């Protein structure tokens, strides 16, 4: 083990001498830096740095020597001489000195002002929106062409995506919808019991699940599960140049990758929603039956209260949500830049954008249904 560095400070009429000994690596240099700098206030015009007993010196040690030289100059020392330095160490010190003398100012990135930063962000956001709209147009065109030529759709991929995004999502959709139905029924049953109207909880559960919560909960689960998966898959393909490979083969990546995902998502979202509706109502049924009502009363109440147009309204929303979930995931994946965090950023943006769009379109549908009297 090399010895820890130390120094000896002496002063005579010719000037000061700092004799360093030991290992001058990053750890040693930082330790020495703290100890030596207070000694520089010596008002001596000459300083000798004696490195005879330095047993090891690396780039950190060489940088320390150069820093010490500059520090001494700034404290009024006129002449600094380094003595007894070994040849190989001397080369290293000279190398560090040369780097210091070079001007790297043109390589330092310009620091943007607050206004410039905000302006750049705004301009980037505008560009991104333009890109998003352009991809939306491209996808719409590809979908229209695919429906005109259904044989050209990659059905194998479509079924595979439908299985992964749909069938595999059944347990999580079931669990969440069941719990939502159960909790909602409990919360509603308590105040309604005061009026002896517990059975009307069935109406609440039925209408809420079919019109709003079923489609919304399913869409949010799929946004978190499938939209992020699509963004990650396509983003990784983008980084691995697989999308470029498709393009130069003359294959349209939108038709090849995005169309099957959108078709699969559009088909499975309504199916999952029907399942979610049933599970939510099952949750409500458990509460109602636990209050002593027969299950047939619960069923009759729902059937008499929930109309077919409520059910259809919910399903129409799901088709749109399905398109939004897949398109957002695919577009965000397609926009992936290079870099280690790029895919992570794309998946996050896919989920956030999908959820915002789902909420926005849910609001739009509510207004439309209100105007239509549905």
């Amino acid at each position, binding site marked *: 083990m090399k010895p820890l560095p130390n120094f000896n400070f002496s002063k005579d009429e010719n000037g000061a001498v700092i004799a360093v000994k030991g290992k001058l690596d990053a750890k040693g240099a930082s330790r020495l830096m703290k100890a030596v700098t207070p000694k520089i206030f010596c008002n001596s015009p000459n300083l000798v740095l004696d490195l005879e007993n330095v047993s090891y010196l690396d780039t950190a040690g060489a940088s320390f020597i150069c820093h010490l030289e500059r520090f001494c100059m700034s404290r009024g020392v006129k002449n600094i001489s380094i003595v007894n330095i070994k040849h190989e160490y001397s080369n290293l010190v000279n190398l560090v000195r040369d780097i210091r003398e070079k001007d790297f100012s043109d390589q330092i990135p310009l620091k943007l002002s607050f206004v410039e930063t905000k302006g750049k962000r705004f301009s980037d956001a505008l560009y991104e929106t333009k890109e998003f709209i352009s991809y939306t147009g491209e996808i719409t065109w590809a979908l229209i062409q695919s429906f005109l030529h259904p044989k050209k759709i990659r059905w194998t991929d479509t079924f595979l995506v439908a299985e992964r995004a749909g069938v595999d999502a059944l347990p999580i959709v079931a669990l969440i919808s069941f719990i939502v139905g159960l909790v909602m029924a409990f919360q509603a049953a308590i105040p309604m019991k005061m009026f002896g109207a517990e059975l009307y909880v069935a109406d609440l559960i039925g209408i809420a699940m079919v019109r709003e919560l079923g489609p919304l909960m399913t869409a949010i689960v799929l946004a978190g599960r499938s939209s992020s998966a699509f963004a990650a898959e396509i983003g*990784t*393909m983008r980084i*691995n*140049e*697989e999308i*470029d*490979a498709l*393009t*130069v*083969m*003359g*294959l349209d990546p939108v038709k090849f990758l995005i169309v099957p995902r959108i078709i699969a998502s559009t088909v499975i979202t309504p199916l999952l929603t029907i399942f979610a509706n049933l599970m939510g109502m099952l949750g409500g049924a458990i509460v109602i039956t636990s209050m002593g009502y027969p299950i047939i009363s619960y069923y009759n109440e729902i059937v008499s209260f929930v109309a077919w147009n409520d059910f259809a309204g919910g399903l129409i929303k799901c088709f749109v949500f399905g398109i939004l979930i897949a398109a957002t995931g695919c577009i965000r994946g397609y926009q992936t830049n290079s870099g280690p965090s790029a895919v992570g950023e794309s998946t996050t943006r896919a989920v956030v954008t999908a959820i915002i769009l789902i909420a926005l379109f849910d609001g739009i549908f509510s207004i439309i249904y209100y105007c239509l009297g549905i």
Partner: protein
Amino acid sequence: MKQNQAAIKVENLFAGYNNIPVIENINFEVLKGEIFVIIGGSGCGKSTLLKHMIGLLPPISGNIIILGENLSRSDRKEKKSILQKIGVAFQSGALFGSMTVMENIMLPLKEFTSLPYPVLEDIAFLKLQLVGLEKNAFLMPDELSGGMKKRAALARAMALDPSIIFLDEPSAGLDPVTSAGLDHLVTDLSSSLGITFVIVTHELASINAISDRIIMLEKDAKGIIAAGTPEQLKNDQTNPDAYNFFNRTIKKGEK
């Protein structure tokens, strides 16, 4: 197999990103059957030029004419037809990770031909045999070494029997023996099948071993600073950048 007809013509090309040119006003021709190498230091625009030549990026201005058809002025349908006449092997291989090596090679055949499956399989096996990967046909890309990935990418690039193959840094990250094997493969394919190769690289050994003609790009010049055969550039002391590159020397004033 080298002929005097041009396979690719690049005319007054300004290429770059977001309308900021990396390369300005370059002109050159690649002859049919030759192995044409694009060299230059890092950041000089080699890959940018390649991306323009394979239609991944639109030129700021100028023309790229491939086998008599103008790629830069083509609509979607024409571009698709031009792209089917070329093959590209990317630096990373860019094999589709969800498909086996065999499926990767069969993909363009399936998409652009209506041949029955056994015929497609035969073609794919033949291409794999050409690159020496016939025993690895059913492996996933993850199971291949770096050199094998590049050879598989070359096999996929050859799937539709293109007249021109573009290779982006084929030797990058490979050991000298694997790299020499790949060079040998390229020269074999060029001489036996008459394929025109356009290769972007800065591997000196590969350049010396395979190239018929070279252009050298330079970052500050934003264009071609030297063109010729490897022998011409190696011995041309009037062109210090090319001379230094080929003789592995450094510029005056640089350490």
